[in-house]
């Protein structure tokens, strides 16, 4: 076996993701020497690592290539999603500093785990091989299981961690089985090799078609668990409600980014030619994603109506938003639209990142130290007691609804455009109708804040770092909504292509 030399590994391209993982290991040791009452130092060191990775990512963003003998791709697709993930991690750290302190769960491991899961997502964005996807998936998931239970021994948090762990383990098993079936059908786990093998398998005897379909179905199911789409969404509300709020915020964006990154890359790089019947113009998985997207949109939005807890409401809304991203994935199954649909999914994820993190930050700002204060009734009268906070929250809610001049509108806009271009009119109609349904529960938050009078004590002021997180996401939501060309230009060159070994 010929092993590569160090220069052939192209390590430079992996610096953003690797540096973060390495820094997490180092930080774990450094944290041992930081006294208990000064754990915020760990937070800032972790944030520094994120900033470093962010800068490194910007440097490699325009210079795509492959590393680790084709296992790892650094292209615009990964670069763009890395930006989303690193911003998520940074904002999550900002949200965590005071929250951990006031809820009495301040421990250095928290930030280490956060960095590890972040680097897991980044590997996920770049993975070009089913085995790497799996390892990245585990690196993403395991720290999140621990983080979800970080509020132990509180019962709901423990329940969240355990539930997430067990269902997540199932999801991983599904994914591995699917990957194994695809390996069985094509003889390779490398995505660029699989695409050729799929073509050959379909051209020849169709004996392996069943394996390929089952494999892609299982992969869809496994990743569907991670991004919480119906019918793999059952864990979401309980886990989101029980986990510490900053973790929930991170999970609702980060895990979705990683899951969709792997899903898009596997479907578009390895399986674009996988058609059910010979001569089909569209990919065979389009119907499956179509149905899952429609179910997700309908169920997520309808069940959200009856929620009375803001974290559960945002959990169901995050299910619904996964449905919108999945609309773009389904649209990507039509050849010729796939690049545009990929961009739409990425823009949607970025828009969703700002808005959703912001909404969680506000929810966290009014949460009480014992974890109560997250019901929708607690928002009553907020427009009077904390006008600025309430106004910003209103913008987040409008953005989640998809009202123009906010990021949410731009996201929905590009997704609907891709869906219509792909000719999926029914799905587009389902998408807009469920948007109207979603308006109902988002507007109810606004109603509670501005139109109802509150009882009980007004919410305490948000702590400084949380305020920074809120302002940052608020600015992102508005800027993306008013000047969307900033992000659409950034996502301009994004296109998923077969990244081969040859540089």
């Amino acid at each position: 076996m010929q092993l590569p030399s160090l220069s052939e590994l192209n390590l430079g391209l992996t610096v953003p993701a690797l540096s973060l993982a390495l820094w997490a290991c180092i930080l774990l040791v450094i944290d041992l020497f930081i006294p208990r009452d000064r754990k915020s130092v760990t937070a800032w060191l972790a944030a520094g690592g994120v900033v470093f990775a962010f800068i490194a990512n910007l440097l490699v963003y325009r210079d795509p290539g492959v590393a680790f003998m084709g296992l790892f791709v650094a292209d615009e697709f990964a670069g763009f999603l890395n930006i989303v993930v690193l911003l998520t991690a940074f904002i999550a750290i900002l949200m965590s500093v005071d929250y951990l302190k006031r809820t009495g769960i301040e421990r250095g491991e928290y930030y280490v785990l956060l960095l590890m899961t972040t680097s897991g997502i980044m590997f996920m964005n770049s993975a070009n091989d089913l085995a790497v996807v799996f390892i990245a998936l585990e690196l993403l998931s395991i720290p999140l299981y621990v983080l979800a239970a970080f509020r132990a021994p509180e019962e709901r948090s423990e329940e969240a961690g355990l539930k997430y762990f067990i269902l997540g383990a199932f999801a991983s098993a599904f994914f591995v089985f699917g990957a194994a079936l695809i390996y069985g059908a094509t003889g390779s786990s490398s995505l660029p090799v699989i695409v050729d093998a799929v073509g050959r398998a379909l051209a020849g005897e169709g004996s392996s078609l069943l394996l390929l379909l089952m494999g892609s179905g299982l992969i869809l199911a496994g990743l569907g668990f991670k991004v919480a789409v119906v019918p793999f969404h059952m864990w979401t509300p309980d886990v989101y409600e029980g986990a510490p709020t900053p973790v929930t915020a991170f999970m609702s964006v980060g895990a979705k980014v990683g899951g969709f990154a792997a899903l898009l890359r596997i479907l578009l790089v390895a399986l674009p030619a996988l058609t059910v019947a010979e001569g089909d113009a569209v990919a065979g998985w389009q119907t499956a994603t179509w149905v899952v997207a429609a179910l997700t949109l309908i169920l997520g939005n309808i069940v959200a109506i009856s929620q009375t807890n803001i974290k559960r409401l945002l959990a169901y809304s995050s299910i619904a938003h996964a449905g919108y991203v999945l609309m773009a994935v389904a649209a990507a199954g039509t050849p010729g639209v796939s690049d545009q649909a990929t961009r739409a999914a990425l823009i949607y994820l970025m828009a969703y990142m700002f808005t959703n993190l912001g909404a969680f930050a506000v929810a966290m700002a009014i949460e009480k130290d014992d974890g109560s204060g997250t019901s929708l009734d607690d928002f009553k009268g907020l427009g009077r007691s904390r006008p600025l906070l309430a106004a910003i929250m209103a913008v987040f809610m409008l953005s989640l609804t998809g009202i123009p001049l906010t990021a949410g509108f731009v996201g929905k806009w590009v997704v609907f455009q891709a869906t219509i271009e792909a000719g999926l009119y029914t799905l587009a109609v389902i998408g807009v109708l469920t948007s109207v349904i979603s308006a109902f529960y988002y507007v109810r938050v606004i109603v509670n804040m501005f139109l109802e009078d509150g009882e009980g004590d007004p919410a305490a002021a948000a702590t400084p770092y949380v305020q920074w997180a809120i302002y940052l996401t608020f600015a992102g939501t508005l800027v993306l909504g008013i000047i969307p060309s900033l992000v659409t230009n950034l996502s301009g060159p994004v296109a998923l292509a077969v990244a081969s070994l040859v540089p």
Partner: protein
Amino acid sequence: MEATGLSLVTVVLFLPLIGFAIMLFMNERTQAGAIRWTALGFSVLTFLLSLGLWALYNPDDPGLQLVQRINWLPDYGISYYVGVDGLSLLLVILTTFIMPVAILASFRSHIFEERGREKLYYLFMMLLEWAMIGVFVVQDLVIFYVFWEVTLVPMYFLIGIWGAEQRIYAAVKFFLYTMAGSILMLLAILYVGINAGTFALPEIIAAIQTGALSFPFDGLFSTQGLLFLGFLIAFAIKVPIWPLHSWLPDAHVQAPTAGSIILAGVLLKMGTYGIVRFCLPLFPEASVAWAPTIATLGVIGIIYGAWVSYAQRDMKKLVAYSSVSHLGFVVVGIFALNAAGIEGGILQMVNHGVSTGGLFLIVGMLYERRHTKAMEAFGGVWKALPLFGAVSLVIVLSSMGLPGLNSFVGEFTILMGTLGSNILGFVFALFATLGVILAAVYMLYFYQKVYMGELDKEEIRNLEPLHWSEKAALVPVLIAIFLIGLQPAPFFRSMDASVDALVRHVDESVPEVVVGNLQMPE
């Protein structure tokens, strides 16, 4: 058509937003008066500059004028593209005209004593003005949709925060109802834009005219028919065309006075304007095919609205249902699909804005004094406040369509257009006329109940005289009523060229049906 320099349209559009930004930094407690005056000042300034639009406007040119275009999202073919033509000029001026009136009407309102938050109120007013002007001047489908949706937000808050007892129900109903309609329009916009390769309306219409772009049409529910419906349902909810009107009475009755004035004065017009601006030129075949159906709904609305108005004992509800009736007229006029019908329709939009705005204004003033909207609580107001009674009479008569006042001109032209139309014809005109008669019935009933009769109620005898700000709000309404009623020619002149071009475009697209091309009676 392409222009890069700063256009007056852009100035008019963004002036309210500048006012918004300035007011944002004022202190609510110490500078309440200054906030009020800033709002008024900016709205008056916007009005004056919008008159400048008319001065710069060349009525012989049917195309867009004072155009400005900046790329906003070049990858997706979306640009900031504004300008005015004969279809939108009057409506821009109507918007800027109604806003100072609405702001003046809020100066002494009781709502701030009850709910406070005066600064937020005027901030929303400025935001609303910006969005409404945007709806009328923007020529890009996507940006149009943006402004269209943005108008929802401030209005939602105006009703929801400063409305009457049922305000939350009314506000949420308003929001969901109108959003449900408009979001289907988003899909239609996307479909049109993707097929045309651009979202700029003039370019799309030009492509349709040259035959480079066409939406297949063979029947009411063909591709073009569905696209037409996608747009029309959004507009029909806003207008509102019967049977999609049920949000309107709730919103009107619960909204504060200024909210009602703006709602009736401008927001409803966005629907009828949208039909003229988008439905007719984009989908001419579908418009012709659907015209009888929609016009029938319009006629039903005329009679239904009038009938229900007559049954009301609540002044605001009465005026609200009369809006359904009046807007039915506009819809019938538009779908006559000839120059007279459309011009009458546009002028009637302006007239209804002025008259019904005025009606809400006087109802609001009565409410401020008695804190009830029930007609039984009044009677003999004329004797207590003769000047107010006289002014109210003019507004009521204007709304009825008395010759010499504004509405008469619009309604008469619409009836002319309907009679001369090959699509609608005599029966529609007959039923529409019935609506005019019914309007006289319920309006006079209202006037008689509230203003006439003996001065036998203690509270009425002690009615507080009009505050100067209330007088100031009424004066421009009166001026507009007489001006349009006595000198309608310049208003028609501003529309002639553009409407003519539109009618000819529809006519040429549908060779089988000869659209009646009755010219304007001079």
